[in-house]
């Protein structure tokens, strides 16, 4: 008969026990990997995207570049990164401008999630975002991104941006990378975390 109860004071909690069961009731948002930036990398990359989760989330906290640049995202397969057919639309607002700007990238080589704004490279200019990725593993239909960001653009202006987009490609995505992919700025500091979302 399988045990269903443990008698009080019968288990030594200082011991180590093997566990072969299944933990239930855990969170549906699972932290997969955290990168704390060091060594001024050119890009930050997450590999091992698989079918475990139907949606992936990336949070960037206080990222700071070595110089003015953009924050871009590129998706890749097991063999290579995909460098065409990224489309993006959305809106951005910059404090002090008084207007909302429309973002429209139709045939890009990355998701340019800072849109038309340069991300500032001064030590007090940083980038913060939450972004979701959908259908990364699909072989038909397209890979979508939705990102909301608050960052400081060149000249110390704060920018809010909300963008959605898609990668027009039927390949199965297994990795993603972030950074000033088409520019020369490296990443000085900050934290980037990859989560999986269960559905």
């Amino acid at each position, binding site marked *: 008969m399988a045990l269903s109860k443990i008698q009080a004071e019968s288990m030594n909690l200082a011991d180590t026990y093997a566990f072969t069961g299944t933990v239930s009731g855990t969170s549906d948002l699972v932290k997969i*990997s*955290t*990168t*704390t*930036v*060091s*060594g*001024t*990398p*050119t*890009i*930050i*990359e*997450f*590999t*091992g995207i698989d079918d475990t989760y139907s949606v992936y989330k990336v949070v960037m906290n206080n990222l700071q570049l070595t110089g003015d640049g953009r924050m871009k995202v590129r998706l890749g397969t097991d063999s290579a*990164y995909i*460098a065409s057919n990224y489309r993006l639309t959305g809106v951005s607002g910059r404090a002090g401008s008084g207007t909302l700007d*429309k973002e*429209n990238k139709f045939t890009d*080589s990355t998701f340019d999630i800072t849109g*038309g704004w340069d991300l500032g490279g001064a030590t007090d200019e940083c980038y913060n975002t939450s972004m979701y990725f959908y259908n990364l593993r699909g072989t038909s239909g397209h890979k979508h991104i939705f990102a909301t960001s608050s960052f400081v653009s060149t000249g110390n202006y704060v920018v809010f941006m909300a963008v959605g987009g898609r990668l027009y490609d039927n390949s199965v995505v297994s990795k993603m*990378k972030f950074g000033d*992919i*088409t*520019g*020369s700025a490296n990443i000085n500091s900050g934290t980037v975390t990859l989560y999986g979302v269960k559905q």
Partner: protein
Amino acid sequence: MKKMVNGVLVDMTPEEITEKEQDIATWNEGAFDRSMENLRFKRNNLLAETDYLALSDQTMSAEMTTYRQALRDITNGLTTVADVEAVVFPTKPGA
């Protein structure tokens, strides 16, 4: 060049460095086309704001006609990124 993969700092491969250099070169080569695309996007939005004045039950003033023509002509003669960045949009007249 370095990259961080799943939290670990590693050297980029020669192939990755070549890809990065090509990305930068391609991006720089497209600077004028991108600046023109952004200019047209903004110009088209400004034109759309006053499109309703071209409806048959509206009368467009001479100032508005001049303004809209100036918007249409705003890309004329631009050959460099500096040209595009120096563009000043015309002031919208009162409708």
